[in-house]
């Protein structure tokens, strides 16, 4: 029974204990909480006493009760003090605002009550009324994040916080405190990065943060300059950006403060005593770097520069140089010195060695040349590096006799030549030249003839009076003396025409020559090249080739494109040089500079194109041929390609009658020239023209005549009727018994025939006899006579017809246009003149014949007397047959002045009786009959 009671008590106690631990207030509250802030480090150290090991810690901004930390941490007891310590690092400077801390113990799910809060006051308490900003002058690495706070002065409004001049988003922490957080800060400038807090009116306060890098130094090297002390240098590496003096990197060398001297990106500091091991420590706020170096003094000798460098003796080909050392210890040092010689054409580096070296002889210099010498030395044993270089020292060597000249003779004819020599370079002249001495001698003359030439002359003409060779010696002269004379004997002249030259084709602007070696050569060969066809002072180039060589390349700098060169190789032996081989060629061919002279001639249906080649200078390459084009509008059609350059003509065959333009272009290997154009118009051949122009019309005419003849034959009856109608016989009143035979009628001066009106005209008589023309003209030379020579013939013919018994009442026309009338149809004109009195008006001005009818339209007719006769006739103003005609009337003689016109073919008038009923047909009538075929 008692056992159960004890067990029950124990169980109840256990339950009570368990209930007490699980319930609130059962765990003891931590006590003795104290706060210890580290403002620069922004840490808060909390110490308290408690039996528990697990605690809830809560930190909050006192004023606004903003919790900034609520964390459960396990904190051990400090074995020395028996207190529990926990350090909190705040991202916000603790001065920004008041912070309060409270702690409670925790055991799994049970917690004690919170300890009374402890507070550290910030700078925003009312007692501190001024503006301020935190943190101040903090040094942080690049890329870090920071929180800045601004505590605004009492009764002043807050506007913004600016980081590097840029407004930032601010958070309010308390009544007067505002904060910004900057992330990934860049490196600062020389005076740090400014964070400024502003009110609307003023700049209130601010802070500077220095953002940079830890030291980046590397490469420590120590050396000695005086064989005793040490100078250690290193590379500073990356800029720390910490320029504020208290933030700059601090250096110690082997534990001693190092007075750093900066030389660019290299820094160095010195130690009075050499030590074999060196340690440099570089330290700044953000970090520390340790550099080491180990070496013996002998291996780290860096000599100073030689001083007082002078030349104690200067000659033409050498000079002695001397200097001194600023450190006495150098005199016992085995050293090697390097002299750098810089001249106009000669630069070299020479090494000399010796103990305490301070004098050397420079050899291999050139006469009359400027040299600049610098000296630097180093330790021979354990060479470390070359020492400092001395100041440059200038040397001018003395003069010496010039070198021998390179002389050649160029023969431009069989008895004239030009002695040529190449200018001496500065290196070979050994001093400014004052002139040349040219001596010549021939086999026929004793001794030498010498002439002096100025230094700018490089040739001397020679004339061979006879065929003997001349030997010429040329020497250059400067103030130091004459050079060795160079002799040359004139070679035999060989004209190009005497040789069979081969073409030489250039390669990349050069001539690659090769020839068969000649056994006779004892002094090698001379390659000579000169523009072909050049005369006078030609640019003659030559080069001497050793006898072992049998090839040579002419460099392009002495060759001109598009110029033909004659290249000759001479064999040098004792005596005159002999020509071995000769070429002609272009280093680089170009298209011809000028086109050919072109002409074209027509030969039948062919065109013969012929041209003349341009001059050699204009060819600029070997002419390979010609191309012939036919120009059609804007294009050229190839007609022929003549690959033989000697052909200078071409016949284009089978061309039709048209105009053509031909273009002929010469071409070299570089291409065609611009071409010459010739135009030709194809015309018909002379024989053809004769054929077409003469024979064809003749044939046509012949055909017409045949047709007319046929037609006339078939219509011969009608023709006879139309042209030769039956003329009724005249009715001759009275006795007309004149004997048969020609009527000896003397026509009046104005007429060729005098016809006497007689009704008893006997048709069988020969009525009219033409007066010889000469006679008529003789008698009427004052009369304007028709010059038509047919008229007398017609008259004869006409009278013959009449005489033959052909009767016609035709009356000779008296119109003024006798020539035309006579030339056409005599009969027609005659009738027209009779039937149409007005037709005679056209001849009124000429004072020609007026038929027996007065023309009222021509009152100005000068034949007044003649007119008066008709006017007397009253009504008979019309046609008046020759009834009133009076043979040999004296009045008729008076008509001579007005009736002398040859158109007044009065001789063709017939004595037609007025009673004649037959009327002559009009021309239209007979023509119509002709066409209609009536007879």
């Amino acid at each position, binding site marked *: 029974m008692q056992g159960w009671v004890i067990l029950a008590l124990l169980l109840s106690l256990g339950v009570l204990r368990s209930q007490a631990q699980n319930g609130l207030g059962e765990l003891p509250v931590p006590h003795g909480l104290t706060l210890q802030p580290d403002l620069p480090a922004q840490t808060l150290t909390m110490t308290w006493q408690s039996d528990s090991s697990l605690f809830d810690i809560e930190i909050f901004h006192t004023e606004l009760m903003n919790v900034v930390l609520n964390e459960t941490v396990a904190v051990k007891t400090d074995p020395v003090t028996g207190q529990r310590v926990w350090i909190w690092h705040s991202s916000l400077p603790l001065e920004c605002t008041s912070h309060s801390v409270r702690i409670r113990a925790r055991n799994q799910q049970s917690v004690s009550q919170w300890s009374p809060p402890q507070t550290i006051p910030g700078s925003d308490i009312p007692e501190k009324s001024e*503006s*301020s*900003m935190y943190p*101040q*002058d903090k040094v942080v690495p690049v890329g870090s994040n920071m929180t800045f706070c601004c505590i605004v002065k009492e009764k002043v409004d807050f506007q913004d916080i*600016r980081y*590097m*001049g840029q407004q930032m988003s601010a958070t309010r922490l308390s009544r007067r405190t505002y904060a910004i957080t900057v992330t990934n800060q860049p490196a600062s*400038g*020389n*005076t*740090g990065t*400014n*964070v*400024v807090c*502003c*009110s609307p*009116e*003023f*700049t*209130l*306060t*601010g*802070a*500077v943060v220095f953002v940079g890098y830890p030291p980046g130094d590397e490469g420590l090297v120590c050396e000695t300059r005086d064989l005793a002390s040490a100078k250690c240098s290193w590379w500073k590496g990356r800029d720390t950006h910490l*320029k*504020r*003096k208290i933030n700059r990197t601090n250096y110690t060398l082997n534990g001693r403060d190092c007075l750093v001297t900066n030389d660019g990106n290299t820094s160095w500091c010195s130690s009075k005593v050499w030590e074999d091991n060196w340690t440099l420590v570089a330290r700044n706020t953000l970090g520390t770097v340790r550099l080491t170096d180990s070496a013996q003094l002998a291996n780290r000798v860096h000599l100073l520069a030689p001083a007082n460098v002078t030349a104690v003796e200067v000659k033409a080909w050498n000079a002695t140089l001397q200097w001194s050392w600023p450190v006495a210890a150098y005199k016992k040092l085995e050293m090697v010195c390097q002299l750098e010689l810089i001249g106009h054409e000669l630069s070299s580096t020479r090494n000399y060695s010796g103990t305490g070296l301070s004098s050397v002889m420079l050899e291999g210099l050139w006469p009359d040349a400027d040299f600049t010498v610098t000296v630097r030395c180093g330790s021979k044993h354990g060479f470390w590096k070359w020492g400092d270089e001395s100041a440059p020292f200038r040397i001018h060597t003395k003069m010496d006799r010039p070198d021998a000249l390179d002389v050649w003779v160029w023969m431009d004819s069989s008895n004239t030549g030009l002695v040529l020599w190449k200018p001496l370079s500065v290196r070979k002249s050994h001093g400014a030249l004052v002139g040349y001495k040219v001596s010549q001698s021939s086999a026929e003359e004793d001794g030498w003839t010498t002439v002096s030439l100025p230094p700018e002359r490089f040739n001397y003409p020679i004339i061979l009076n006879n065929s003997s060779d001349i030997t010429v010696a040329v020497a250059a002269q400067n103030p130091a003396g004459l050079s060795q004379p160079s002799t040359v004997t004139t070679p035999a002249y060989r004209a190009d025409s005497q040789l069979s030259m081969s073409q030489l084709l250039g390669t990349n602007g050069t001539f690659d020559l090769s020839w068969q070696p000649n056994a006779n050569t004892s002094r090698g060969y001379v390659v000579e090249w000169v523009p072909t066809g050049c005369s006078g002072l030609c640019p003659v180039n030559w080069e001497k080739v050793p006898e072992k060589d049998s090839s040579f390349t002419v460099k392009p700098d002495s060759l001109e494109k598009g110029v033909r060169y004659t290249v000759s190789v001479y064999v040098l032996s004792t005596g005159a040089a002999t020509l071995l081989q000769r070429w002609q060629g272009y280093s680089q061919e170009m298209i011809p500079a000028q086109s050919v002279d072109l002409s074209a001639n027509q030969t039948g249906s062919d065109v013969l194109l012929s041209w003349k080649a341009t001059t050699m200078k204009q060819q600029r390459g070997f002419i390979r041929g010609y191309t012939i084009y036919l120009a059609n509008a804007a294009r050229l059609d190839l007609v022929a390609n003549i690959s033989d350059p000697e052909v200078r003509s071409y016949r284009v065959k089978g061309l039709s009658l048209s105009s053509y333009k031909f273009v002929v272009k010469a071409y070299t290997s570089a291409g065609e020239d611009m071409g010459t154009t010739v135009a030709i118009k194809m015309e018909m051949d002379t024989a053809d023209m004769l054929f077409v122009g003469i024979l064809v019309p003749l044939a046509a005419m012949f055909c017409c005549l045949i047709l007319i003849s046929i037609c006339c034959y078939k219509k011969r009856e009608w023709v006879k009727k139309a042209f030769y109608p039956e003329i009724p016989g005249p009715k001759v009143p009275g006795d007309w018994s004149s004997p048969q035979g020609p009527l000896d009628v003397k026509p009046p001066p104005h007429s060729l025939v005098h016809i006497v009106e007689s009704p008893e005209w006997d048709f069988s008589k020969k009525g009219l006899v033409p007066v010889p023309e000469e006679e008529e003209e003789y008698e009427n030379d004052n009369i304007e006579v028709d010059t038509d020579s047919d008229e007398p013939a017609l008259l004869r013919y006409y009278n013959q017809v009449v005489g033959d018994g052909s009767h016609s009442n035709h009356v000779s026309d008296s119109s003024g246009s006798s020539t035309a009338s006579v030339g056409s149809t005599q009969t027609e004109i005659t009738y027209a003149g009779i039937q149409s009195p007005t037709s005679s008006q056209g001849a009124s001005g000429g004072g020609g014949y007026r038929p027996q009818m007065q023309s009222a339209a021509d009152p100005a007719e000068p034949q007044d007397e003649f007119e008066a006769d008709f006017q007397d006739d009253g009504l008979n103003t019309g046609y008046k047959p020759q009834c009133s005609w009076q043979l040999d009337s004296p009045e008729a003689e008076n008509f001579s002045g007005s009736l002398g016109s040859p158109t007044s073919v009065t001789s063709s008038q017939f004595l037609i009786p007025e009673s004649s009923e037959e009327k002559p047909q009009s021309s239209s009538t007979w023509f119509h009959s002709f066409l209609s075929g009536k007879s």
Partner: protein
Amino acid sequence: MAGRGTNGRHGLRGHAGRTAALARLLHKECIQLLESYRNSESLPSSPVAGDYLVSTPPLVPQLSDAEKISILHAALKECLRLLEDVITREDAEFSDEDSEYRRKRKTVRDRLGHLLASTEQLLVDGQKFEAEVKEELDGQAASGSFGLKMWIVRVLQDLVHWTGQTSDTLRSLPAEMVKAPKTMSRRTRRGAGKIRK
């Protein structure tokens, strides 16, 4: 006679004119210096809170021109002292690398010395006022590098202010300035109890 002529009415007026031109030029350069500093430091253009560092008796219209010149001379003298202190402290604190601001700073310092020497020649009878500096740099330096920078701004603001005052005053000098010495002596003696010498 020639020497008297140059020190006479026209010579003095000419000197005052040159001094006014010098003050005007310096005022312009001080403005540029302040602007250059603000730009290099990315500082806002709003003025730094606080009064001018250098204080003088008020330049009331009742003062004679000579008295005004004397007061301004005293203020400029204090400005030069403050500027030299600033230069010394700034060079000690930060890198002494060359910059546009530093070249202008040296120019202003040298020209301020010339202006002081020039205005001193305008002073008459050895009567001199003194200016007072209310705050010193040591008190501001406790606030760190930013305090130094704000101090520099305030010194430059004072320079702008006092060179401007000097320029305005010298430019408004009337032609009878040359007569001022006699009258100024009387006024100086009368106002001696109010103004520190």
